[in-house]
Every structure is written in C-alpha cells, then in structure tokens.
C-alpha cells in the first residue's frame, strides 16, 4: 500500500458520519470493437444478442467478453449460451484477473483529510472464437 492507501484495520474505524464513501469507476482501457463489457443493468437478452450479432456478422472470428465482480456470473452465462447456440462451432478460452478499484472517502467535517483506498475485485475475460475446421 502506498501512502494514499489505508490498512484494513483503519477501514473499520471510519465513521460514516464523518466520511462519505464514493466509489470510482474502474479505469477505462482502449476498447476494440469486438470487446463486450457485460454489466448488470442492461437486459441479459440484449447483451446476448449483441454478442451473437458480432459473431455472426462475419467481421470477427473471435470476441472477448469481460465481466467484473457481480457480472462475472452473467459473462459466463452469456459465453455458455453462445457456445450452446453455436452448434459446436465455438470454443471458449476463459481467463481470470484481479482489478484494483479505488474508493474515495470524502470528509464531512473540516478536520478530515480526504482518503483514497484501494480494494481488489475479480474479473473474467472470456474469449469466444470459432474452432478451426481442421
């Protein structure tokens, strides 16, 4: 932990009356057109249809489905549905990773110093690609 981070023991002591927790979004990385970031807000069928369209459009032979935290389950679900609909033509290559997220603690009083702390969350990246006919 660098100077901005706080240890876990200190986390517990933070009084919600003195600080407001504000979660920052994860860092945005450049995105290709065949990257699909799965979220929990969009309808599941819409996200599935989007992946299907990408694969069947003929433009891409592979797409990458990313899911973070709660959306991991959904990302796996989408990938498996795609494979099931693909009549055995599709293969999956899942990868897991850890994403570092930043939380800000905004002081409610004049005395408090603003604090940023990190926390880790798991993520999944599933590559869905056409299996070679050979």
């Amino acid at each position, binding site marked *: 932990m*660098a*100077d*901005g*981070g706080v240890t876990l023991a200190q986390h517990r002591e933070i009084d*919600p*009356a003195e600080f*407001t927790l*504000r*979660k*920052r*979004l994860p*860092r*945005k*990385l*450049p995105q290709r057109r065949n990257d699909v970031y799965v979220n929990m*807000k969009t309808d599941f069928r819409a996200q599935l249809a989007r992946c299907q369209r990408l694969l069947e459009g003929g433009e891409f032979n592979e797409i990458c489905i990313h899911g973070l935290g*709660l959306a991991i389950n959904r990302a796996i679900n989408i990938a498996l549905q795609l494979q099931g609909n693909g009549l055995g033509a599709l293969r999956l290559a899942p990868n897991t990773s850890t994403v*570092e997220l*930043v939380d*800000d603690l*905004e*002081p*409610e*009083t*004049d*005395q*408090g*110093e*603003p604090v*940023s*702390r*990190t926390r880790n969350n798991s993520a999944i990246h599933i590559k869905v690609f056409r299996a070679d006919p050979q």
Partner: protein
Amino acid sequence: MIPDQSVLNQLKETDTLPEENVPTESTRPQQTVPLEDVLSDCTPADSAQAATEETVEPATEVEEVIQDASVDNPLEDTAAVQPTLLETVAEEVVPRVAEEVVPRVAEEVAPRVAEEVAPRVTGTMAEESPTPPDTLTEVALGPSDTEAEMAPSLPEAATELQETAEGKHIEDETGEKVKGETQQEAASQEPETKECETGEMLKAAVTELASSFAQARAAEVNAMLKAVKNKNANSQVFQALPKHMRRRAMSHNIKRLPRRLQTIAKKEADKTSQQKKEVSKTKSRKARRRHGNLLLEFNRRQRKNLWLETHIWHAKRFHMVKKWGYCLGDKPTAKCYRACYRAMTKHCLLQDLSYQCCLELRGAEDDLLKALARVTSTDMGATFAAVACLSGKRQGSLVLYRADRYPKEPLGQVTFIWKPKKVPSEERQLWIWTHPTSKQVSPQFLSLYHTVWVGSPAEIPAGTVLGLTVDDPRLNLPNKRSQSMPDPSRVQDLQIRQLTLSGVAAECAWSSIWDQAVRDNVTENKIPEKELNHMKSELLVPGSHLSLGPKDSRIPILLVQQPGKQTGEELSGWGSGWDVLVPKGWGMAFWIPFIYRGARAGGLQEGLKHSQNKGAAHFPHDFPDCPAGMRFAKEQENELADKFKRRPPAKRPNYIKHGSIAPFCCPWQQLAEEWEIIVKDSGDEQPAALKGRERPLSAVQGCEEELLKSAESPSKLRLGLQLEGIEVDAGVSVTESKKACAEGIGGFRVLRSRNVLRQLSVWCRPTSGKGQRGQRLVPSFQQELTPESAVSVSAANPLSLVWARLTLLKKGSPALHAMISIPTAEDFEQLSKDPAYCGPQEPKHRDHFKHKIKQIKKSKKKKQPPAEETSEGYKTSSPDGGVCSDLTLGLWPEPLPSVTSHCSRVTIGFVTQGDFSLAVGCGEALGFVSLTGLLHVLSRQPADRRGLVLMRNAASLQYRFAKLRIEV
C-alpha cells in the same frame, strides 16, 4: 490612506457605472451612503496596514472591505471597539454581495419605468385646459361626461405610479414593476386606438355637427381636428389621411396625395433623403469595417452588456442572449443536441465560463476563516476551513448564507480555491468564484475560466488543483481539426497508480497565476495574433513549427478537476472534466487550439443539460430560496406567461381544465405552508384516524381517501373542495405570506443539512422488493423510519423543501413545472396487477372562469370603452370584492386555490428541470418536494413501494409513476 482613497474612488466608479444614463434620486443615496460609512469606519485601522498592497482589479465592495476587516484584526486585542467593527463589517459586507447588489438592477428599472410613465400621465391629466398639446391622448381626456367614467382609473394609476416613483415600496418592487409596465402599456395603447379611429370619427363629426350632441362636443371635436392637422412628430403626413383615402403609390409619388398635403409631404421626403445621404456618406461599409472604427463600434455595443473574450467567435456560431450584464452564447445555431451530449460523455465539451465572477480575499488565515465561518455552516458538510481545501490541493464548493442566518437567507453557490502556502504564517489568498447574479457586475475580471470535459479525468481525486506553466498554445496548432486521443503506451502503470491514489502533490498546485504581477506581465507581453501570423508566413518551410526562442511567452495556468457525477449509484463519474484558468487576454489563444483538438463548444443550455444529467444543482435554477433564484423564477414566469398569451386561446392548453394551478412558476411558499397546516391538523387528531372529517382544512388531507370513496360524485366533491380552497386558502396563504413578508424572510427554505439529507435518502429507498440487491445496511447513527421520527425531523425543519431527483419508471418525459403527487393505494394495486400500467388519469376540471371572461367580454362590447381592452387579459373587478384581477383564458387568476389538494392526487412538490435523459435512457427530473409532505408520504407507504410518487406535466392529464431519490 492613499490606497483607501483609491478604493473609494473605484467604488464610486463602479457605483455610478450602471446608472450613468438615468440619475435616479431615490435609489442612489440609499445605496452609497452606508457603503461609504463602512469604509470610513475602516479608515483608521487602515493606516496601520499601508504595507498591504492594492488588490487585484476586480474592485468589488466585498473584497475590499473584507480585506480591510481582516487586516483590522491585529488591533482587535487592544481596542475594544474593533471586534464589533469586524462583526459589523462582516455583516455589512457579505450580504451585500448578493443582496444589495443584485436587486439594484431590478431597482433601477422599476423606478425608472415608473418615473417615466408617471409624469407623462399626470401631466396630461393636469392640463385639462383647452389648449391641447401635440399628443392625441388629449382628445380622449376632454372635459366631457363619458370620459369622466374612465377617467378615475387613470388618476389612480397616476397616483400609484407616483408612489412607486418616490420609491416607497422598494421591498416588493418587482410587483410594482409589473404593475408599472402594464400601466405603461395601457397608456401607450390609447394614442394608437385613437389615431386609427380619427378618420371615421372625423367623418361622423362632420355629419353630426348640426346636432345638439355635437355642439356639446365642440371642444372635443376641435381638439380632434387640431390633432389631425398637427400630426405627430414622428409620423408621416401620409398617415394623417383616413385609411380609405390612402393609396400605395402615394409613398413614392407625392402628386398622388391630396394637393393640400403635397407641400408638407415634399418637405418630409427631402428631409428623409437628406438624412439617408448623410448616413451613407460618413459610414461606408469600408469605413465601418476599418479596424479602429470597428473597435469603437464594438466598445459602444458592449457598454451595457459586456462581451467575453471569445464573444466574436461565439456570435458567429451561437444564439446570443444578454444575461447578467454579459452577452453569452445560449446554444449553438447548429443542430447538435445529441452531438453535444456525445461530446459530454465521450469526448470533450468546451464552455466559456469567464462570466463567472472572481473575488479575491487576502489576509491572515485565522481572520479570514473567522469572518467566513459566519456565512457558512458545518451542518452542510465541509466549509472553507476543510483541511484539503485549505492546503490549496483541492477546490471546494459551498452555499453561502447571510452572516449568522443559517438556515435562512441563503445567498448563492460559490466555489473557492486557496492559494497553496509556501511558507507558514504567510498571508493567505483566496479566490471565490460566484455566479454574476449574486454579485455586482464588475467591469474587470481576473482571469478566464473555461470548462473542459475530457477523456476520463474521473480517475484522479475530485477537485484536484494543478498549476502549470505552458507555452504559447498558438504555436503548435494542428493543420486540421482533429480529435486528440490519449496514448496509453506513453504512461507507466506505477505512476498512474500513485496519481490515482494520492492525487497530485501539494507543490504541484502552486502556480504563478496567483501573482498579479506575473498575470499582468503575461497579458501585456502577449504577442499579437497579427505578428505571430507574420512570423509564420516568413518561415523558410511553410507550415513548419515556429520557435520563438527567448521571446516565447510562458503562461501560468491553473487546472481544476471537476468530479462529474458523484451522487447516486449509477453513472458515477459521468461528465467529469477540467476547469482551465487562464490569465486575462489569453482566452482566444487557448480557445482556438482547444477547438482544433476536437473539443465541441457548448453554451448555457448545454451547461444546464450537463448539470442536469450529472444530478448537480444548477445555480439560479435550483436555488429558489436565494435572491437570485427568486428573480430567475420571476423572469421565467413572465417569459412563459408572455409566450402563452401570444398564442390564440384555442391553440394553447387550458391549464384550468388540466388542473394545473401554476404552470409557469412553483408556489413554494404556499406549498410549504399548506403541508405544515395539513400535518399539524392531522397531528391534532390521531394520525391513524385520517378519514371522514368535516373540518374545512382537514378536507385537504382527507381528500385522497374521500375521493376514492365517493367515486360516484368525484367532480362534485372536487368542486366543493375547490370552492372551499378558494375561500380558505386564499385567506390563509395571503395572510401568512404577508406575515412572512413582514418578517423580511422568504419563509420557505431549502434543506441543505447533510445529516438530515442522508437520513432522508435512506428512508426514500424501498427496504424490500426485487432489484434491491446490495442494499446497504442502515448505519448505526441513523434512525428507523417511524411516524414519530418523521414528525421530529419535520418539526426540526419547518417550511423546508428537499431537492430530489426523479426517474420515471416507464415512458414519459417530464417537463418544467410538472407536479409531483402522492399515489393512492388503488394506484399501487393497479400497478401490481398490471405491469404495463402507466399511471392514473386526472379527471378533467371545469373552467369556472371561462364563463366569467365571456360575460366580461360581452359587457365590454356593449359599453365599448376601448381603452381598457388589452389583447388577452381583461381588467375586471370581481363581483364580491372590488379587487382588480387579470383574467386570462386558461390560467388561474391570483390568489391561487390550495395547491396541494387541487387535483385528485395530493401534490407534494414541483419539478424545476425535466427532460428525457440521454444518459439514463428514460425521463428524468429534478425538483423540490415539501419535507413535511415527503415524510408524511414515506411513513405511510408500504415498505417495498417506498419512494414511488406520481408525476404529471402541467399540460397533461396523465400521471406517471416515478422513483424519488434524494442523493447526497
């Protein structure tokens, strides 16, 4: 003493500046005298601090006096008088920022209108002698019997106007202003109507001359004839002819005119042609476009409303509006609503915010903080003294109140930056940015202030301040306009991690832009555009990079991170960006490169949309309790009402039939008061026994249940309620609002206490039901929602409004001034039965005034006094009282009936901003609800439906379900 004298001079200058054309005796002395008193109080102390340098250009009262006050402090220990002085100064000064300065504009206008009108009317009234002046009004005011009927109304008007001219009623001068204007209209309409009719009347007069009737009118006819002969100063002789004798060709061929008029017409024609020639001679287009002349012309045109540095660029591409003493771009002329939205979300939207006013405060830290602590409150969260802000690392944002008056009398929203300190015990410097409506228009501004929303600046801590020194941005302009994209390969992960976690170090926040000498130097030594272009053209390889070497200017700038959407759970960090502060004079030099790098420029409308999507309060719009907000609401109401009245009655909504009492403004005061009465009433009895009461005021409360019960006769009941409402509430609200006015406060206030808001925000969330995954536990310091706790909260904050955000569940797009109402149990039942259920319908109301208007119209036609008729409104005296009210088809006349119980669903609030939100993909609105009403609703709603309300547009009968959230 010398600096003080100059301060005084500057103040005088700024004082006289807006009033130079009309010296209004009534307003001037009242405003200047106390100010000079304050200053003269300060002078003895000032001699001790001759060392303090003169402040920066923005020569505003506040800044100077606060500075003085803060320097006074060393003497405070010795002299017992000083603390009181400091207090008085703080008290005097800070409110003046908004209060005295803002109304001045309005005050200037009102008496001026009154003064101009009053003498004219009274003048013609007084001279009833047979020698008529040149105006045709005299004809109407001849000493005859019929005129005597309408005459009394005019003297009344005259006396009223005289009163206003004397400035007796300054406190409600806005009302007076309107009155004055209407009277002016009425006065100005008379001559027109008379003029049109002179022809016919002349004919009639000639035929009836023999009759005795005409003999009685001899004086009148004489006057009329005279008036026909002596035509008006600025009308053509052609116009003296009756309409049926006019011919088109007369305008260019004089011989077509009757012979007796030909000579006069010839003279006129000569005169006009001469005038035209003169103008064209001196002002050829070429001459007008010559640089010096052009500059003169520009200076003349911005005498009243200042131009920003980017004005000319904007004027070519934007609809410009004159607002707050500036000429500002409202919205682009191009159709780019969605493009601007995309720029906000994905790229960069640029807005010139240099109209914002900067105040500089200097002094010892403790003194400044002590003075500023009185205008803020720790109840609203961190103040000026917040550790992060005080170190200069962060920008802070606050709502200021009048000294020691929290939670009443807010002044406005400000943002502030402290100059980072290099040496401890150094004199501190503080910049406060305010909206121009809450401050006097100062002719010089410190530095430019652009907002830019780029890439994803949400990755660094909110409000970070970054000081930089940059090269001249004009030197490395791209050849073509292009979009700049960040290069991810150039940055290192470790650095980024460090930056995102701990933010920028305190040293980085320092910039030499804080130093006035540096700023001036940079502004003065700017290489003019012309020279730069000349140098570029002399380059050996055209288009190559121009390097100036030692002559290259280094410009100090300040970057301030804007955090974007912070509240709420979705879209966090939306619309984050950077504010760029540039020294004066460099606005255009930075603006063009921004545009060339792919930024899209937006105007005031885009700024409003941005803050709406961000869920942030926008300054005058969402501060109805500030003086600036009230004035804004008043202006908006007048504007909307005028727009409404311009349409023919058949082509505009009849708001009475829609049950919308106040479609153009939000009667906050009445709303807050009514809810106070309702709850008090239900508190007197048992809260459980709500139903079936006969007392008139509790009918308001019971109406929702009663309405449902008596479904067979809803219209009858509502009628009863309405009539009752008129009698009861008119009495209540009028007396109470008068009382509130007498106390000198607006009465209602907006709740800004962080603790209460957080409590409310938890209460507004449904505690069970689907879609509530990840529901946070209720923190220990907060109470459960019970009727008792609700009552205690509302009792602690009487007459309060809460700012809330509403999201529509299904379709529909909320509009301005939509009503927020309480759904009944039946509505919930319907909703749970049918998932596609949009919401209940309001039954159509009856328009009782339509009949009255028709009657009046008919009686007017019979009597035919044309002077009283205006295009839309009919001035009438209502049958019971002798009160004059303006009846307009489709609008409720004053006084309004009960706002809460007027419709079938009980109203708790109104929307101040509403639209279909492209960011969320559904209708979204920001508005205020009555705190008492909200708590009343929440404590009675089922746990899984908590926070569900109904929303209805003013011009629609359809209610729609919306989710109410309070975000802190």
